[in-house]
């Protein structure tokens, strides 16, 4: 049973940081930024390249995260702000296009083979009957820490207050003297950094290839929408619900019902499951689980 909890936690931690980033950037920019999933892959690739160049893991990760933050701000200034002036749907298509170009860059520079960190591998530890490796514990820790830092930032600092004010009412925030453009830039940078960190954490537990970003896109969207796009901490809950559903779908044995020993749904249906949850959420509570519905008139 505890293994189930561990599995859910690990999967949730795959999605969580990127989903929180997605939600945060939506709260201010008001469009779903598809390129964010690519920022995750970019962070991982950069960190690997830096590690290969001789930097230890921690500094190379930090540098990679910062670079991705800068890239995100630049892309936002050069492209997304202009696209957003046309409309949020246009910006969404634009972000899709940007992620395709990023794919092409990966293809040319890194090539199609997967990449991995150079890490010492250990046998799994046994905790309450569940198997978990040091890297997994570490990744859970980093995720928890990053989310906590983000929450403190959001609720305890001036920047957080500006963010929340701008998210609630851009015009009003502008009128009260908040520099909304600066606030938005900060959020773009922070969300990209979160996504990059998320990508590094996933890669710490496995590997990254040029498909990783696009493969993550829909599960991350599911988590972010379930939590309510624009409600960053809701995405934490969304990621946990998605992870739970995915793990349940593949862990339930239908054998006894069908009179056989073992019958599982194909594991591919785990992702399908999260997409179905996404669609159902949109049908039932379009604004997500954790936002109370206010009907516009």
């Amino acid at each position, binding site marked *: 049973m505890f293994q189930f909890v561990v599995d859910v936690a690990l999967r949730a931690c795959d999605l969580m940081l990127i989903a929180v980033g997605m939600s945060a950037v939506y709260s201010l920019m008001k469009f779903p930024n598809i390129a964010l999933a690519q920022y995750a892959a970019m962070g991982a690739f950069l960190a690997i390249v830096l590690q290969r160049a001789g930097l230890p893991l921690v500094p190379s990760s930090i540098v990679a995260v910062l670079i991705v933050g800068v890239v995100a701000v630049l892309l936002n200034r050069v492209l997304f702000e202009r696209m957003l002036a046309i409309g949020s749907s246009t910006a969404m298509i634009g972000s899709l296009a940007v992620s395709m170009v990023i794919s092409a860059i990966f293809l040319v520079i890194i090539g199609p083979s997967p990449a991995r960190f150079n890490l010492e591998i250990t046998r799994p530890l046994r905790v309450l009957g569940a198997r978990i490796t040091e890297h997994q514990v570490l990744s859970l820790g980093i995720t928890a820490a990053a989310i906590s830092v983000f929450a403190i930032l959001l609720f305890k600092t001036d920047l957080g207050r500006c963010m929340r004010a701008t998210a609630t009412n851009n015009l009003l925030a502008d009128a009260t003297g908040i520099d909304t453009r600066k606030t938005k830039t900060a959020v773009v940078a922070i969300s990209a950094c979160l996504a990059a960190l998320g990508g590094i954490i996933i890669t710490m537990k496995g590997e990254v290839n040029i498909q990783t970003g696009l493969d993550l896109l829909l599960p991350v969207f599911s988590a972010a929408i379930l939590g309510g796009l624009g409600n960053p901490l809701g995405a934490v809950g969304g990621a946990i619900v998605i992870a739970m559903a995915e793990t349940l779908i593949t862990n339930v044995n239908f054998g006894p019902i069908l009179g056989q020993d073992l019958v599982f749904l194909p594991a591919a249906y785990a992702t399908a499951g999260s997409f179905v949850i996404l*669609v159902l959420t949109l049908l039932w509570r379009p604004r997500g689980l954790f936002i109370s519905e206010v009907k516009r008139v």
Partner: protein
Amino acid sequence: MFDFLIHVLIMCCLYSMLALSLNLQVGFGGLMNFGQIALFGCGAYGAALAYKYDLGFASGILIAVGLSAFVSWAFAGIGRNLQSDYWGIATLALAEVVRIIVTNEGWLTGGAQGISGIKPLLPELSGRSQQLGNLAICGAVLLVALLACMRLTRSRYGLGLKLMREEPQLAQSVGYDIMSLKRGCMIFSGFIAAAAGFIFAHYITFVGPDQMFSSETFLIWAMIVIGGLGNHFGAVFGAFLLQFIFAFIPFVKDMLGLPTEFVAAMRLVLIGGGLIGFILWRRTGLFPEKVGGRADG
């Protein structure tokens, strides 16, 4: 060279149908469909299933029509009260669910191996005359689809679609049933996409889930954005343009002696970069929408 040209033209016609269909949804109805390839898949699998279970050509058309009507209806249904960007994500997710089901339910669909050996459309012809026959069929179907689309958008139904795209609230307040407009638009354009899939299946004589990756949808998006949203000729032109470029990139590669990876990267850069460029610098595409239209006089 001549035969290659015919092949390219056939592919142009098929993609033009997909572009026309998506343009009707996006350009006229304002429906941001990111699951277009699922509709194409309905047509392709209609042909394939009819072949696999030996049901004959006519029932293949029936299956294709039935499947595409159902999927379009479901797409429209989840859009009941969703913002367009949310709806886009939902359609992307649904198309992936369709692909996952097709991949995993091998007893019905042949699974990942797909269904091969489908009879060509003109089995009694062979060689070049068969190719010319195929081209004639594709051209004729494209022409019918184009005329039908033009007629549709000149009808009051088409005006209603445009009004819905621009001001849904206004459309409602003068008595348009938004859901019924969406459903009609999706189902009709679904038929065009399914027709393309149906012919495609008979043309390349093979259908598999690999033909239903979302990247295909993005390609069609690039075609209509470059061609001009809300302009039928633009959609067709965009499809021809991109197909021709893709078909002839390998020749450029041969001529300049570039590595083959160049082709792959170029494809992504052209789609992504094309989208970005046109969004930023020529939002109306090569053929801007005609405000007012011809039927105005």
